[in-house]
């Protein structure tokens, strides 16, 4: 196993928050969703996903609830809290600014 996260440091949190912004999801679904939407480019390892989820939960950005999943089994569903929604907006803005800046640099050179 390589580093816990193959993603740019800090972006995993943003991806998780974004994925959860529409509806509550459990861990497996979150990983699948990110994978699908990114066109199989972003592979989220369990080793990064679960520590991140638990950290976000401890920080109060997301909250968890055990519910029946689509397969009929109990699963832990995460959803955004009000504070998490604000955090998502802020991080999205940050990311836009950052990626814009990086693009500018790359296109210039």
């Amino acid at each position, binding site marked *: 196993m390589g580093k816990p996260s193959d993603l740019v440091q800090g972006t995993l949190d943003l991806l998780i928050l974004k994925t959860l912004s529409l509806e509550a999801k459990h861990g497996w679904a979150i990983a699948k969703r990110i994978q699908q939407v990114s066109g199989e480019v972003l592979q989220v390892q369990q*080793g990064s996903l*679960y*520590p*991140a*989820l638990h950290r976000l939960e*401890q920080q109060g950005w997301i909250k968890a609830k055990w519910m029946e999943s689509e*397969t009929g089994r109990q699963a832990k569903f995460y959803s955004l809290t009000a504070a998490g929604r604000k955090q998502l907006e802020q991080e999205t803005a940050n990311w836009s600014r950052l990626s814009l800046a990086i693009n500018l640099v790359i296109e210039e050179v």
Partner: protein
Amino acid sequence: MRGLETLRMQIRMLFKRGREAQLLDAELQYHLDRQIAENINIGMSPEEAYHAALRTFGNHALLRDQTREAWSWNWLESLLRDFRFGARTLLRTPGFSIVTVLVMALGIGANVTLFTIAHCVLLKPLPFRDPGRLMAVYENSGEAWPCNVVAPGMYSEWVRQNRSFPSLAMLGEAEFNLSTEDSELPEMLHGAAFTANMLPTLGVAPALGRNFTVAEDQPSGNRVVLLSWSLWQRRFGGDPSIVDRTIRLNKQLYTVIGVMPKGFAFPNAATQVWTPIYSYYPAARMTSVAAHQFAVVGRLNPEASQAQGLADISAITLRVHNAHLDNPFVSKAANVKPLIEDIVGDIRQPLYVLLAATGCVLLIACLNVANLLVARAVGRRKELAIRAALGGGRLRLLRERLIESLLLAAAGGAAGIALADGAIQWLVCTRQDLVRVETIHIDGEVAVFAFGLIALCALLTGSTAALGATDRKLLTVLQDAARGSSAGQGRTRLRRALLAGEVGLTVVLLIAAGLLLKSYARLRASDLGCTTKNVLTMRISLYGGNYNEPAQRVNFYALMLERVRALPGVEAAGMARTVPGDGYWGDSDFAIVEHPPLPHGVAQAAIDREADPGFFKTMGIPILRGRTFDADRRLDQANQTVVSSSFARQYFPNEDPIGKHLHYDGRNWEIVGIVGDARYELSQAPKPIQYYPLYAGSLNNATLVIRSNHDVEQLALPVQRIVRDLDRDLPVSDVLTMDQLLGKNTADASFDATLILGFAMLSLALAAAGIFGVLSYVVAQRTSELGIRMALGAQRERILTHVLLDGMKPALLGLACGLAASVAVVQAIRSMLFATQPLDPAVFVLVSLGLIVVAGAACMAPAWRASRLDPMQALRME
């Protein structure tokens, strides 16, 4: 909002951790199952699907740990885990743990005990209102008596004229015979007499009843007393109706006007009754400006400093002096010191010395434990190296080490506190004579001190041990351990340094103990000038009632002595104001009739003692010339005096004193004999003494002495029976043999010497154990090397000397350092020594020899074992 959310989360993570852990497992399992299901969906066989899922999942346990790291309280959890781990590691080696805890317990216990005493006795404020402003005021009577007790007339002038002390109170000793009541025995009570303003000055009020009034504090005042709490409980059953009742003291009726609060111990813990001073002492004595006999306590004006108070009182004293130039005993100046200083001044140095000694013991204990921990760490080198190789963080391993020593120190500390509690209770029981003994108990501040001490010990031992055990080169350790060939030299060096430190401290303690012991032995061996074997003493006081007339007292003394001498087993009996070795007890001025009068304003004074004719023979004080008093000369007829030989030498340098006359107490007395010198205190050189006949009848309290040829203590009861038959209300007190009396008066010296010796022996044992341990370890490490040497033909004797010298090196180094340090340290106890030089060569040599012998013995066993190695066995051990 978010704050509330995170708080709720933290509480859940703290209290429902087990449940959260289960949920995490379930969550991860769900993920795994979904992965398997998906794998089956894309066409794998169930078994294939399972393994593939596990592969993508990676290390399940690691994942769980990584996730848990995100949880709050993780630090607490890992700390607890380390504690559990530490405890388990220690329990696996119970022998090591018990020894370490015991060593720590002794060190911490001794320190907590001494700290409690020093803290309570020296540092706690006196239990009075604003005690910092309370001062003890003295007369300054020149170099010999810079802090002399105060004459009542002088006190009156101070009160009248001074501006610095709004209240000045005076205090004197008082003794009371409490008469038989109901069926209880008569009892001699130590008391105090003070002025009516004493309690307001101190800021203390009776717990029950009231203070004296000024009207009662007069020669004509009603007889009133205040009782101590303990006397009230003990003799009167704590009955509150005691107030306004009368009790019989000295055969007179006294009204109890109050009971003092529990713990009020002024001027000392033995005081059980208080009475107004001007009604207790004869009015004639209370105007003298030269008869020094009372203590004075004053409350300093908030605006005045101690120096201002002193200047004020000194100026008044000088004025009084100048008004009485004809009386050479009127002081010229005064002295002022804080009351707490006055009360605990004498005990401060011995207590700090003892505290320093216990500090040394604790340091040695810590060094020893650190040493043991290093040895242990060496044994666990491989384990630690493997753990470090597997990714155990250095800091984490260090923390574990510290936690282990913290556990040891905490267990040692708990045992030590229990030990200290026992020691303090024992001490308070056995040393009732210690000043402020009633204040000694373990309180919050002591507890804080104890916890601080535990933390300090843990840190000291843990970090020392860790310092020596951190290996930077993992690979070397692993290879080294695998071969087991040579011991790391660096670690042994650290252990030797620790040992040298232990030995050095031990030497300092041993030398201090040696000096104090020698001083005590000298003190007890100093020649008192009289016999001390098989002599029994007891105090009898003829107060009040039928003893007001001199004739009544003389009759009682003569009758009692006659009956006591008739008792079987009594060789001789006598009576005197007091016996040698029991203190100064005061002096009086005198003039030699045959000499020209002294110049104006010059006077001479010497200790005066009343004695019966048989006293010198009973005490074994030799009559050097002349004879003792004539037994049939009594009252006015008794006009003879006997002087000690130093008195004769000093005041009759080139003439024969016999037949000369002394003018004393308004009369002339003929010198009929010269007796040998006797010391008033063991530690003081003999002073001139003038003896006057007890049968003159002026003295109303005296010490009865009885000599027997064996087992004199058996006579105590029959003698007391004789006294009871003569007067059933008369108590007999302080029944002590001469040995006991001297023991009591030298208790401080023996106590200090014994305790320091105890601490020194403890340190010596610890140091010896340390030397033994280190050398045994070194020998064990070098077994194969020694085996090879022997196989190659090394002589057993050579090996023995080699190992022995190796072990002695740190001991000798420590000895040298300890001796050097002692030269400086002994100066601090100089004032505690009697007739002993701080740099006493005998003590230094003896301690050095003793230490070398003990260290040699400690080294001998491992060295012997090394020399007895079987080379084949040693080589096979690999």
